[in-house]
């Protein structure tokens, strides 16, 4: 990698002060973004619509030119050597533009020719990818007949046709049903296991939580937080156990006995209390025991952990738009 010569550790994506300002009105879509994504890492890029997420991706994949700052992808400068960047990356953009009149196999072949695969590679490579994304049987059907999930999988196969070292997935599972989502997640995990760097934008916190080694949160064109999902959540606060009592009259006593397990506070209603704990699951049996010993009847109990949404709320002051739409 080019950056090795400069003594910088191998990073798949490095940006410094990356900026995109639109001439009309001088508004910033991206304002001073610094990123350092390591090779082989799955980097989750979170943000609501209009936060600068897609613009950052378009800058990194050479579809837009930055107005300031630098960006290196796979060791190549996106401004000075866009062709080398394009040759090293695979991209599945949010709106999977797929010609409905062509078959999946034809599209993969076209994609492999455009990416300069050798003549002998085109056929076998297309077949391999179709098989890998579970479209072997549908390969000769026109894409117009595909379901939304099949299109996304084809899109992923097209992004992978030339074995890119860095893969950009822009909201890959938005609008997908849970089973298609799971298939895609598994594929991302396998790519990571194979050493591919994955830059994943998403509106779904659960997705970032499940897949990403590290998460960056963008708001108003700048990165407001960046760390592993666990560290980010730990920063926001500890897990707590939410307890509902059968009889509100027991609340005072319950607060008293629960203090031996964690830090109890009264809940929002008269029959509830929240007990702040270290781990959550570990303290649950102890808490049941002390309440039981005190003769307090419990109606319900659950462990509540901080979510990335809590992180998001704390860092940006707003909730992520579509979080409640995440299918289980």
């Amino acid at each position, binding site marked *: 990698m080019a950056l090795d010569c400069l003594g910088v550790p191998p990073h798949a994506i490095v940006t410094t002060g990356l900026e995109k300002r639109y001439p009309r009105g001088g508004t910033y879509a991206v304002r001073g973004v610094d990123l350092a994504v390591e090779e082989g890492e799955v980097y989750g890029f979170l943000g609501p619509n209009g936060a600068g997420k897609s613009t950052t991706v378009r800058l990194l994949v050479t579809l837009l030119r930055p107005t300031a700052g630098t960006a290196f992808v796979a060791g190549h400068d996106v401004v000075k050597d866009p062709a080398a960047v394009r040759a090293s990356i695979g991209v599945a953009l949010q709106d999977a*533009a797929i010609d409905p009149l062509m078959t999946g196999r*034809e599209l993969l072949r076209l994609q492999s020719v*455009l*990416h300069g*695969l050798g003549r002998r590679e085109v056929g076998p490579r297309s077949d391999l990818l179709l098989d890998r994304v*579970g479209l072997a049987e549908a390969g000769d059907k026109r894409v117009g007949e595909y379901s939304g999930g099949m299109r996304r999988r084809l899109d992923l196969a097209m992004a992978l046709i*030339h*074995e890119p070292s860095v893969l950009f997935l822009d909201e890959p599972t938005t609008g997908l049903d849970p089973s298609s989502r799971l298939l895609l997640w598994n594929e991302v995990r*396998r790519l990571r296991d194979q050493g*591919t760097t994955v830059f994943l934008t998403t509106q779904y916190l659960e997705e970032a939580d499940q897949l990403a080694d590290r998460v960056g949160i963008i708001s108003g064109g700048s990165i407001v937080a960046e760390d592993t999902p666990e560290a980010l959540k730990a920063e926001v606060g500890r897990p707590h156990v939410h307890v509902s009592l059968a009889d509100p009259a027991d609340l005072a006593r319950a607060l008293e006995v629960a203090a031996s397990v964690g830090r109890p506070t009264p809940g929002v209603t008269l029959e509830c209390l929240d007990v702040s704990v270290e781990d959550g699951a570990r303290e649950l049996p102890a808490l049941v025991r002390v309440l039981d010993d005190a003769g307090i009847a419990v109606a319900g109990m659950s462990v509540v952990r901080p979510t990335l949404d809590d992180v998001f709320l704390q860092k940006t002051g707003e909730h992520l738009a579509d979080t409640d739409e995440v299918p289980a």
Partner: protein
Amino acid sequence: MQPDPVTSPASSGAIEHRRMRRGVVDLPAVRALVVRGLNELLRVPGAAIPGIVSPAIFLLGLTLVFGKATQIPGYGTQSFLAFVLPVALLQSAGFTGGATGVNLGRDIEQGWLDRLLLSPAGRGTILTGLVLSAALRVLIPLPALLIIAFAVGAPIPSFIGFVLTIVFVTAFAAVAATWSSVLALKFRSQQASPLMQSTILSSILFSASYAPLSLLQPWMKAIAEHNPVTLILEGMRQCYVGSITWEVTWHAFAALGGTGLVFVLLALRGFGRYER
């Protein structure tokens, strides 16, 4: 995404790549793009019909209405049909070429162009693919129009006349395709379609389309004399009216080459701006 029985190599470099030289048109990629362009024509029944019906109605209608105009000295033929046949052929070529921009506008709206731009294939390769498929697509309406024209009495040209007709029509379709691509890259939307088709049609009509230069009104003559399409039209017309001369042929090629070059440069600039 089934459990993977195939172990594929982790990093790039394991697959054999062709040499794609930068700044050079990559022929296999162009061929693949042309195949995709033709696909659309072959798979959408009726996609070729507008390129046949409108010019055919125009040709037959004009001949029925203004057929007697050739009684005025200066047309060089008694057959108004022969005189306006090249106009109809250019109209068909222009329409087919204009459709390239319309489709590109759609491709931009739907993100397909982004996909193409994300491949290492250069902008020259993408433009060549677009323009070449337009040039080939026009070969479908062309014979249909010629057959209609011959059936109602248009003169059948010599072999060289045929060859020149095919060359001029495909080249004009390519030029029109480049122009419409310039507009598509500028407006990035299918909404610009009427602008593409109307500018192309106007360029054909505001030339020596209905009458020779000498018979045009002074203001029309001034426009037609500066309109390169007049030279192209006259190059086509010599295949059906009068005889083929090197000078007229040369002028037509120069007009096609000149406009084509200007539009190619504009289109490449359009690609450059698209990324800003």
